[in-house]
Every structure is written in structure tokens, then in C-alpha cells.
């Protein structure tokens, strides 16, 4: 995919082609699939995750958790616990030297509950002991006296005036709004109107590695090693809780055994407790959650209730949407301001909708708090939006793909927030290519033959879009450091973290491409807050797009230095100096060359700067929260999924037989890494669609384990998955790359629901589509 218009920005594909003096086809690493340098150590179990770094001297912190969903804390009695051999300290709220506050955007969440508990599993105290057994005994010996309060577990109940108040100011954590055009007029113009209510469930991240942090007191400061998505956010929270200045806190981001947003929220919470324990006991302390704690007390995907009304004309054009969104945030707001805003601004799906009225509410209940989870509010809203699209198409007698194509966002159109999309809008092409790969038209007809017997087949489509980086006017940036060593190798530093996705490998490829050296010469250091500036979090599918652009900035600075130096050494004009295959030479006489290692040595010897920080500031946006109009995100990734399903009408089993998933990624730095992300997101989306649900009984989670929380196994994902990569480059980033990590998950559940409707004629608007639910829904549908 090549862009035809000239872009004069200081980045983007044209800039890089000009700067590197190469055509895209000449790139050696960018755009090509490579063998992951970390593959061997991962497969062989050699990678050191946080808990693998325990040494003999490390003490253990274990957490005393609330047994009530809602209660006042009368007293925390620690005396008995302190008598246990090996117990060093029992830390409660009163021992927190800094602020006992870890609310993300709204300061509503204590690190350790002091006056009141708001969900079962909420941390109240930390028992620190020389060994895990003593810590466990200590936890059992801490007596908490409670005064139970009436609790509220349902968001609709919580909105009633007589409901118990989870927080003093009431049960609405925040509201969002979009007012665009005139919806009344829009619905009058519509020939068909569809209105439904959709329900989505709480999903657990289910990463293999539970949350873990080890804190080491060092000199007058502290070092924390943990699996995290944002070392600098961890540093900020550790500073807030301990009162230490940020410069005295060093945070190392260990590789994470899966994160999916969960470790974005949990990292600061676990690290702050470990740091607190280490400071109070003056010993290194590890806090490693067990799987049950992860299920019970870590953030989950927001459950949603969405009332959705949409209208279209008979020639298949959307006229208006009216949407009410309720996202249950549980006991604390955590990331809700960002999750709900994201859902709100994406609520119309990737379509042109002239009139919109959207109202969002984030509601407190006495359940574990909701938060970041791959897709970040978008899977829920697209589950509704994309089923609405299918129902409108059906009423209009238009093919669902065709109906979408008549409404998709294109360059020059405006989003539901009235944001003018100027570039990198690949929805139309993505949908067309995915439909073509899936042989949509033919299959949609052919599968009607599979309507006899108990097993029927159907095919469904869903699209999505997903803004990359932060929303609305929230500033975003990234940073990196490139150091040229005297032997010509490169030390690369970034605080974008390793979650299994391979962002840093992408960064290294960008650096190596710009310097035209072998990838093996670029050594990726562990993310370390003391060694490079804040690259900002590894979330919002931004790790490669923003972090990689910062890496490019640093590498370009070094490249310019090396060209200048080579010009001097080769006695060749700068414009004729070429960097290629680890050498510099003069284009006029290629035999006039110098090895990269020699160049590196001379950099130092001749007084040139050998190391550079790179910085990338995401284009500024404007957004008006009073109307919900403005520039919500700098750029979007566009996604289309098509799935073929088989439904067993007797048992309700939904089996995904084939899946086609495509995304406009801007520029694929590594198609292999993208395919990995798309396949993984699809599998997680299948779990979300079919089997995963955190179940409660009176506020207590009754399936806090893999026996009863059902994630897909290899046998539950389709054997045939085709990934389609579309490249509509973005002019602001390195080589035009956008983000992809969350993409494929977002339209998976609605595509499956649409396929089930195609197969059976029955629509399920309530996630997940478990066997039992579909079975009874089909029986009901027949009546």
C-alpha cells in the first residue's frame, strides 16, 4: 500500500524514505517478519519473570483482605500476628508515610482500607514475614472487626435513590456526553429504526503470571522490580505512597507473563505495597499474588448495559443514534473516566452518523473494581453497535457488508464526535479485503444449506475502530535512548515494557533499519526509570507507535552524527555518505568505506556525541467534554472480523470454525508480530464471546479459578485463522505505524453474535454466548 499524496510532516513514510535514501522495498527489517530474538529463552523457560528473581534474603508480604462487600472497619487487631515467629511487621493504613491513596484519576481508592471496605478482597493490611508460611499464618491471625453495611451489587439498583452509597458522593462515578446534530430530526428521516438493550459481562485477564513485585531498599532510596505496563506510573504511585522523591525510586520493568491491561492498573498497587513493606522493615520484600487473589481482587473488564437506538434510510445511510451507556466500575473508579470516554467516543462504530445523542454513566457497586482490559471499553460498545448494524441491514434487506460499506468512515468524513479524519483511514479497504478473504458473498448464501439437523452454520461480520494513545486533550508522548558503544554495538533503552507483544523488538528493528546495521547489534536493556526518560505506559496499543517513533528520533540523531563523522573520515560530502550493512561508504567511490565498529570508536575519539535521547510528542488534540465534540484521538486503527460458526441447536454450543481478521495498522513494522497479536486477541475475544464470565454470589466471586472460569483452550479456537494486514500510513509516526495489540478482540464478540443470528435466526444480546444461554434462547426463539 503506498500513499499518493505528498506529506511534509517531519515523520511518516515519506520522511523516512527521504531521510534513509531508500524505497520501502529496500528496507531490510521494517516490514519484514523476523525470528523473535526472545523466542528461544521463552520456549526454554529461561526468561526471568519477577518471581524467578527471588533470592534467599527476600521477605514476603501477604495481604489481609476484606471478607465483607461493604462494611465499616471498627478495629484492626495485629498483636497476635506480631507474636508469630518470623513475622516482622503488620502494616495498616496508619503506617503509610505518604498518601494512602491510589485512585487513578479520581482519588477514591485507598492503598489499604482504613475506615471502610467496599468489596470482598479489598486490601486492609500487609503482613511482612521472613518466609511465606509465617506471612500466611500472620494473615490468618490479624483480626478485623467490621460493622457490616447494606451492599449493592447491581448497577441499576445502585442508581436508585434509596440504594446504599458505595461512596459518599453517590454511586455515579462520572458521566459522559455527546450531542451532535439533531437526533429527533435524524430519526424522522430514518426509514427503519432498531432499538435494543445489550448486556456484557465482567471478564478476567487470566494471565498466566500473577501480579508480583519485589522491592529492595538501596542506599537512601528504593528499587522495585515488577511485571508492569508502566514503570513511570509505578514510580509516581510509589512516590505518592512512600513520600520518597521520584529520583530516589528506581523501577525495573521485568517481562510480564501476560498483562492485557490488568498489570497497568495492578502494577502501581502491588509495587506500592512492596515498597512500603521494604521501607518499614528495611528488608527486601516480595509481594506475589496467588491466582485466587488475582481473580478476587484485581481489576476486571467493565460489565455494561447499553440501550441502543439507531436509524437508517432505505438507501442504507445511517441517520441517527441514541445511546445510553452504563459501565459498572465496581468499588472504585480506577480507569473509568478513560474507559467510559473511550466507549462514548467510539459508540457509533466506525461509521458516519450525522446525529447523535450519547449519555454514559460509570456506576459504583460493591464488587471488585473494573479497569483496563485489552480494548478498554470498546469491546462492549461495539458488541451493541455492530449487532445494531446487522439488524438495520436485515430490515433494509441489504447485505451486512454492503450496508457497512455505505456508512464507513473515510478520509474527509467526520466521526460521531465531529472529528475530521484527514489521513490513515483504512476501514473501507480493510472490510473489503477481509470480506474478499472470507469469500463473504458466496459463504453467506452457501451456508443457508446447513439449516437441517441439529447443527447449523452461519457467517457474521463486525467492524470496529480504536483510537491509539490517550483520548481527548490528554497530552501523550514517548521517549527512548540510543547509546553507541565503542565496539559499534547499540544499547537501546525504553520504558515500554515486555508483555509478550514484542514492542521493544519493533523498536530495535526501527533503530537497526535507520542505522542500517544487523538487528543483533542492538541490545535491548530492561526498562528502567533511572536510565531513560518516561516512555509512558504500554497500553492503548501505543507501545510501538509512540515508543517506536521516539526510538526513531534517537536513532536519526545518531545517524546524522555518524554521517557527519563519516564525511570527515572518508573525505566525502555528507550527502554522498551512505550507511549500509554496518558500514559507511562514499556513494561516489564505494571502496572508500569504514566499518561501523571503527566509526563507533572514532565517534568517541573525535569528540562526537555518542548517545541520544529520542522524544515523540503525540499531535495535540482539542476536545470539549461539555458536548463530546472535538478531536478525540490523533489516529485510529480500523478493524474488520468475519467468523464462520457452527451452532448445535440441541446443546447451544457455538463453535467458531473459521475466522478472518484484518486491521489497518498504518505500517507493519513486523507482520509476524502483528499476526501474533491479532491471533491472540481473536482467541481472547472468543473467550469473551462464548465462555468467560466472572460469577458472583452476594458480592463474592464463586469461580476464582481456572476450573470454573472458562478460558478457551487450543481446541476452542478455529484451526483456520486468516490475518489481513492493511497499510494506510500515518504521517506523524515512524514509517507510518499505528497500533494493533487490542484491535482484533474488539469486533470478535459481535461478529460471533451476528454469525449465530445468521445460522439460527435468533439474536443473543447478552454476553457470553454460553451453551446453556444459547440453548434456552433458541428454545425461546422457536416459540
Amino acid at each position, binding site marked *: 500500500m503506498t500513499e499518493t499524496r505528498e506529506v511534509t510532516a517531519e515523520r511518516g513514510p515519506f520522511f523516512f524514505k527521504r531521510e534513509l535514501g531508500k524505497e520501502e522495498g529496500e528496507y531490510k527489517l521494517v516490514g519484514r517478519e523476523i525470528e523473535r530474538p526472545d523466542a528461544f529463552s521463552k520456549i526454554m523457560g529461561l526468561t526471568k519473570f519477577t518471581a524467578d528473581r527471588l533470592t534467599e534474603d527476600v521477605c514476603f508480604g501477604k495481604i489481609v483482605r476484606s471478607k465483607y462487600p461493604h462494611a465499616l472497619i471498627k478495629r484492626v487487631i495485629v498483636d497476635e500476628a506480631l507474636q508469630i515467629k518470623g513475622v516482622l511487621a503488620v502494616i495498616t493504613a496508619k503506617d503509610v508515610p505518604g498518601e494512602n491513596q491510589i485512585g487513578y484519576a479520581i482519588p477514591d481508592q485507598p492503598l489499604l482500607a482504613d475506615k471502610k471496605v467496599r468489596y470482598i478482597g479489598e486490601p486492609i493490611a500487609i503482613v511482612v514475614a521472613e518466609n511465606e508460611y509465617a506471612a*500466611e499464618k500472620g494473615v490468618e491471625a490479624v483480626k478485623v472487626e467490621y460493622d457490616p453495611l447494606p451492599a449493592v451489587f447491581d448497577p441499576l439498583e445502585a442508581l436508585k435513590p434509596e440504594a446504599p452509597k458505595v461512596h459518599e458522593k453517590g454511586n455515579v462515578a462520572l458521566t459522559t456526553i455527546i450531542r451532535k446534530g439533531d437526533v429527533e430530526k435524524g430519526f424522522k428521516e430514518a426509514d427503519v429504526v432498531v432499538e435494543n438493550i445489550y448486556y456484557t459481562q465482567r471478564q478476567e485477564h487470566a494471565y498466566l503470571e500473577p501480579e508480583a513485585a519485589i522491592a529492595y531498599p538501596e542506599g537512601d532510596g528504593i528499587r522495585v522490580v515488577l511485571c508492569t505496563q508502566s514503570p513511570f506510573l509505578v514510580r509516581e504511585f510509589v512516590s505518592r505512597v512512600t513520600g520518597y522523591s521520584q529520583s530516589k525510586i528506581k523501577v525495573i520493568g521485568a517481562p510480564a507473563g501476560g498483562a492485557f491491561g490488568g498489570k497497568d492498573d495492578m502494577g502501581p498497587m502491588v509495587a506500592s505495597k512492596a515498597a512500603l513493606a521494604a521501607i518499614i522493615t528495611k528488608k527486601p520484600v516480595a509481594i506475589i499474588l496467588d491466582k485466587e487473589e488475582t481473580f478476587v481482587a484485581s481489576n476486571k473488564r467493565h460489565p455494561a448495559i447499553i440501550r441502543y437506538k439507531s436509524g437508517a434510510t432505505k438507501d442504507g445511510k445511517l441517520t441517527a443514534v441514541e445511546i445510553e451507556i452504563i459501565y459498572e466500575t465496581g468499588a472504585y473508579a480506577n480507569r473509568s473516566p478513560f474507559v467510559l470516554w473511550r466507549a462514548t467516543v467510539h459508540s457509533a462504530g466506525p461509521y458516519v452518523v450525522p446525529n447523535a445523542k450519547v449519555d454514559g454513566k460509570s456506576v459504583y457497586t460493591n464488587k471488585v473494581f473494573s479497569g483496563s482490559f485489552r480494548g478498554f471499553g470498546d469491546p462492549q460498545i461495539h458488541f451493541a453497535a455492530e449487532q445494531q448494524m446487522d439488524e438495520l441491514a436485515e430490515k433494509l434487506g441489504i447485505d451486512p457488508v454492503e450496508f457497512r460499506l455505505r456508512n464507513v468512515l473515510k478520509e474527509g468524513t467526520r466521526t460521531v464526535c465531529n472529528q475530521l479524519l484527514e489521513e490513515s483511514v483504512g476501514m473501507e479497504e480493510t472490510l473489503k479485503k477481509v470480506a474478499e478473504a472470507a469469500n463473504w458473498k458466496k459463504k453467506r448464501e452457501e451456508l443457508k444449506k446447513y439449516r437441517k439437523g441439529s447443527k447449523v452454520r452461519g457467517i457474521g461480520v463486525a467492524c470496529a475502530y480504536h483510537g491509539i494513545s490517550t483520548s481527548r486533550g490528554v497530552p501523550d508522548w514517548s521517549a527512548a535512548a540510543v547509546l553507541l558503544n565503542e565496539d559499534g554495538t547499540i544499547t537501546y533503552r525504553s520504558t515500554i515494557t515486555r508483555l509478550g507483544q514484542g514492542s521493544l523488538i519493533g523498536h530495535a528493528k526501527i533503530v537497526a533499519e535507520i542505522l542500517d546495521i544487523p538487528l543483533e547489534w542492538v541490545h535491548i536493556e530492561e526498562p528502567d526509570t533511572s536510565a531513560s526518560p518516561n516512555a509512558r505506559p504500554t497500553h492503548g496499543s501505543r507501545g510501538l507507535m509512540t515508543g517506536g517513533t521516539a526510538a526513531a528520533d534517537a536513532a536519526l540523531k545518531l545517524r546524522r552524527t555518524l554521517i557527519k563523522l563519516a564525511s570527515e573520515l572518508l573525505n566525502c560530502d555528507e550527502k554522498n555518505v551512505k550507511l549500509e550493512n554496518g558500514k559507511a561508504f562514499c556513494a561516489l567511490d564505494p571502496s572508500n568505506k569504514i566499518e561501523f565498529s571503527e566509526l563507533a570508536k572514532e565517534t568517541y575519539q573525535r569528540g562526537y556525541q555518542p548517545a541520544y535521547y529520542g522524544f515523540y510528542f503525540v499531535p495535540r488534540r482539542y476536545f470539549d467534554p461539555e458536548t463530546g465534540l472535538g478531536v478525540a484521538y490523533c489516529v485510529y486503527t480500523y478493524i474488520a472480523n468475519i467468523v464462520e460458526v457452527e451452532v448445535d441447536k440441541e446443546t447451544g454450543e457455538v463453535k467458531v470454525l473459521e475466522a478472518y481478521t484484518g486491521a489497518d495498522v498504518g505500517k507493519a513494522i513486523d507482520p509476524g508480530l502483528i499476526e501474533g497479536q491479532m491471533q491472540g486477541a481473536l482467541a481472547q475475544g472468543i473467550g469473551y464471546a462464548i465462555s468467560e464470565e466472572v460469577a458472583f454470589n452476594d458480592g463474592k466471586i464463586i469461580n476464582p479459578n481456572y476450573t*470454573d472460569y472458562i478460558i478457551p*483452550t487450543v*481446541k476452542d479456537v478455529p484451526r483456520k485463522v486468516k490475518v489481513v494486514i492493511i497499510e494506510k500510513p500515518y504521517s506523524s509516526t515512524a514509517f507510518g505505524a499505528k497500533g494493533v495489540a487490542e484491535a482484533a478482540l474488539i469486533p470478535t464478540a459481535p461478529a460471533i453474535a451476528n454469525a449465530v443470528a445468521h445460522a439460527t435466526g435468533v439474536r443473543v444480546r447478552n454476553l457470553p454466548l454460553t451453551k446453556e444461554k444459547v440453548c434456552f434462547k433458541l428454545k425461546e426463539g422457536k416459540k
Partner: protein
Amino acid sequence: MKLIPPFTYYKPETIEEAISLLDEFKEAKVIAGGTDLIPLIRDGKYTPQKMVDISFIDELNFVREEGGYIKIGAATTHSDILNSKILNEKTNVLVQAVKNLGSPQIRNLGTIGGNLCNASPAADTAPPLLVLEAELLIQGSKGERRIPVKDFFLGPGKTILKRNEILREIHIPSEVGKMKGVFLKLGRREAHTLSIVCTAVLLKADTEFEDIRIALGAVAPIPIRAKETESYLRGKEVTEKKIDEGTEIVKKEVKPITDVRGTKEYRTEMSKVFVKRAINKALKGEVECK
């Protein structure tokens, strides 16, 4: 979750040694693969003090045919059952059940004796053994006793085993090889999951049901035989209508509960669906369904 507490571990090499350890220590508990027991410990539902590991006892690890029985040592792993030539050739309904039990890792550790002694209503090996009318050889310090497998289970987690007894062998009458057996399971996903309902059907039929045995798991406090359904079908003509009528009776024979895995209503419905599917599958290739 709890840490696994320190406990005394015994690794007897003979059955006698194992029994004498159980006689000696009241607090001792038998462990084999540990795939059920270790999660119980980690859930804090059982705190071990002394564990007698019987998985290294050679006399408990075998599958062989003798004296008109296929005999299986209680500590035989699921993987060994899956790969047993005798079981695959003579009667593979048990093999079918084990094939989808847990995951490869669990099958490599978990044992058939453990699956029975854990007495889960959803134990996948129980329905096949019920229809095979297997007998269990139980060993105590004062000798051994044989009981039909149907008398083994008392309730969820409860068997007739006394504290100092161990399940030694499972005996399957060789003659069942003449009957066609099918095991089917409904779980919440394709593999590595507990049954919402599972069923084993063993039958002999030409134009009529000469003999039929039906057992179900996960739909009553213990794995059960569907005797009324069996007697309705026995001697009946093999027709779709009769099978449908017969399996309708299953719905009255099961006594399921509602839990996080499925509701009573769904389990009841699915009991019929799966028994019917198992019968049809067993019939396929033998007789044409009229």
C-alpha cells in the same frame, strides 16, 4: 489459596506397606496423582499431615486380562489407560472417557483409582465402569473385599472405603467386549473441563435392543445408572421414536443441581440429548436406525 503446608511423605513400595502405614497413622491420607488432592489442599479444604503416595507401587500399575476379567491397577494413570492395547481392543468405552479427561499433563499424573476415590459426581471414569458393571477390589489390613462399582459411591466426595483401606483393582468382565460402548461428555469448552453432564452407553442391538445399559455423571449426587430408561428400551424395536420416548425417561431419573457449571434445567435437558446421541452413535455401523 493456601500454601502447601509441610507434611510427612511416605512412599511405600508394596500394598502391605501402604496399608500398614494407614493402620499406624490415623491422620494419613492416600495420594496418587494428586490432581484432585493438591487443589483441595491449596483451597484450604484439606490440610495434610501425613501422605502415603501409592503411585510407585508396581502391583497397582497394570492393565491385564485374566480369569474372564480385564483388570486395572488402581494407580494406573489415565495416559496408560488411553494407550492400553487391551482396553482399546476389548472395550474402549473407558478409553473414550479418559481421552478427554483433563489435559495431557493431568492424564499423565491422574489415576483411575484417584478419579473414583475422589468421588466427584462428575468423575468421567465412573459412567463407563457403571455400564461395564465393573467390580472393585478393595484391600484392608484384614484382607480384601469385592464390591460392584455401583455400590462404591455414597455421595459427593464419599465412598464406602474405610480410612485404612485402599482401592486396589478394577475388574471389568471380559464378556462386555461383545457390546458396543459410547461415552459422551458436555463441558463448558472442548477440553480440560468438568462435565456438565457425561454419559456412557453400552448396548447390544440388531433390530431390537437386546441389552442396553446407560449411566450418567454430574447429574446426581453420585454417578448413576438410568435403570428405568434401560428397562423401557430393552426388547424394544430400534426406531427413532422408541429412542426418543425412552430417553425422555432419563429426565426423570436424573437429580441434578444448579451450580456455576450449569442449571438443573439445562442438565436435565442435556441428559436426554446426550443419552440419545450416545445410543445413536453406538448403533451407527451396527444397525441402521429405522
